[in-house]
């Protein structure tokens, strides 16, 4: 079996609205190896969530539709699977946890039942066994007295607890891939650290590969092996985390890195990337980042650079990078 678990190639997911077509994801490519953690970073609206929902094939339709590309998971193109087989993958081989732990659990069912549901659905176990496994999963996520907590309703739990429940649910069937869409953004800082630690611990235990979506670069440094930087529905840079932090190639990546607050430097004003993310319906003709790029030249405004491999495993789409955009 190859090392590549997931290979997303030229994925395009568009939203067809009355006002026009929104190319929320427009040619995204990246890959993920077994057991590794890939961080997907980028500003709000860059298409991170839509990319992950596309992998799950859970794009709200209408108005959204995957209009092109392929998503190879274990060598099988998910976009070609019938819905019935896709359902066997969701929650079983690929799981997802979301940003909003407060609203991601069904308020009218006990949390244990909600975890057990995934097990009954995919593993053909009976209700009793499923409930026992659910309690076991809750124990693994570090929830105290899980045998009692399993019978509680979501509203009886804090946000951090609920996110642990979501993690227990997502990992209950031992998926090969976990997509975590900003799993800690809505939580307190101390709880954030605990949840991230928990995810790392369970990843080691189960060998799960993780796609970690975040706009927090500290999380990237902490958790990820590699990172893909997204801007306006495209991946603009892909690299190992070390490379990315040491020598960011894309001006957008440099901008993101420069805007991290540093403890050792007393700065009066935090660096911010100038300007705002352009409207996806009216993207500039050239590089989408050119209007905000401090280094942009005239060709940047004229033509769009491709994502090209500049050194093994290292990709960037920028005219200014030696060998980039060929």
């Amino acid at each position: 079996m190859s090392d590549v678990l997931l290979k997303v190639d030229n994925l395009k997911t568009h939203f067809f609205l009355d006002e026009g077509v929104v190319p929320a994801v427009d040619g995204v490519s990246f890959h993920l190896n077994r057991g590794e953690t890939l961080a997907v970073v980028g500003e709000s609206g860059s298409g991170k969530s839509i990319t992950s929902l596309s992998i799950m094939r859970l794009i709200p339709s209408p108005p959204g539709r995957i209009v092109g590309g392929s998503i190879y998971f274990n060598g099988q193109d998910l976009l070609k699977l019938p819905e019935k087989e896709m359902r066997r993958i969701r929650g079983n081989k690929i799981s997802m946890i979301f940003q909003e732990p407060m609203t991601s659990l069904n308020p009218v069912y006990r949390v244990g039942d909600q975890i057990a549901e995934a097990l009954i659905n995919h593993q053909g176990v009976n209700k009793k066994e499923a409930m026992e496994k659910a309690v076991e999963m809750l124990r693994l996520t570090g929830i105290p007295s899980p045998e009692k907590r399993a019978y509680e309703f979501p509203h009886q739990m804090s946000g951090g607890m609920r996110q642990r429940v979501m993690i227990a649910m997502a990992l209950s069937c031992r998926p090969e891939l976990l997509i975590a869409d900003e799993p800690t953004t809505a939580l307190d800082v101390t709880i954030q650290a605990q949840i991230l630690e928990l995810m790392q611990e369970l990843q080691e235990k189960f060998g799960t590969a993780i796609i970690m979506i975040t706009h927090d670069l500290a999380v990237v440094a902490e958790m990820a092996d590699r990172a893909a930087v997204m801007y306006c529905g495209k991946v603009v840079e892909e690299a190992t985390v070390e490379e990315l932090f040491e020598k960011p190639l894309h001006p957008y990546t440099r901008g993101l890195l420069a805007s991290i607050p540093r403890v050792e430097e007393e700065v009066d004003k935090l660096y911010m990337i100038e300007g705002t993310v352009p409207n996806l319906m009216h993207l500039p003709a050239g590089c989408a980042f050119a209007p905000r790029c401090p280094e942009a030249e005239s060709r940047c405004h004229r033509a769009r650079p491709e994502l090209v491999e500049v050194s093994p495993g290292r990709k960037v789409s920028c005219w200014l990078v030696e060998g980039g955009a060929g």
Partner: protein
Amino acid sequence: MLRYFLKRLLMLIPVLLGVSLFVFLVLHLLTPDPALVVLGQHATAEQAEALRESLGLNDPLYVQFGRFLWDLLHGDFGRSLMTHAPVLEEILARFPATVELALAAIIIATVVGVTVGVISAVKQYSIFDYLSMIGALLGVSMPIFWLGLMMIIVFSLTLHLLPVNGRIDIGMEPAHITGLYVVDSILTGNWESLKSALKHLVMPATALASYSTAIIARMTRSTMLEVIRQDYIRTARAKGLKEKVVIYKHALRNALIPVVTVIGLQLGVLMGGAVLTETVFSWPGIGSRMVDAILASDYPLVQGTVIFTATVFVVVNLIVDLLYAWLDPRIKYS
């Protein structure tokens, strides 16, 4: 839970007291002299005065009200001026017919309303959605007596499929157990009676259900539309559940919480006697009885019926509120 229940029961007291006072005052201030109703136009002044005295109508109003309340508490609603039978007996004799009609209507309204509402929401902006929402608009705006008459003209007078009026063919009444003919027929295995009872029930129940069906369908559609956009629905899909399970287990259960209130309110209203429907179909329930009583100025019967109806209404609503506890674990009763 028990404490909440008792508290709610206690709260019924001021409500029912208020209703009693209101009914009492309205009837005493606005209705013609009951003595004349009983004795007729040609009674002498002395006869009328004697009757008034014996009925206690010459006492101050508050004394009369006090006596009225005291009697109510003893289950004494007075006697009908028309039949001289105790009012409560009159009402209870008619109540099963009303309950049967109301239950049939609410079952139709709930099943049809919820189903249509769910499908409309899941297939928003489809032809089904448009047609059913036009239907719902008709349902809330169509006068019931007109709908009832149209049904009678089509199904009874033209097609001769269904009887025009009444609860059952004469002589077909099943043995009395609950007083609901459909239920009693089933309990006694009397299929001929069941057939007759259902034939009589279907038109009035459908006519009566039209308004509630429309309300429930609209409400279900709008709450479903809201619920299926929720994050936990996305979570359910991400678990790999079948769309049917996502909709009927995860979404509908949440969407039903507000719908149950509406169903409960509708049931409360229907239980109070569907005056128009019962009149159009000559359905022998408390609604049509009340119309007779009003026309005959039988004020003890009117008074008793209104208070009885109000009691049924608040009790039904109390039961619905308790149903909430089962549907929505977030509600804490205290």
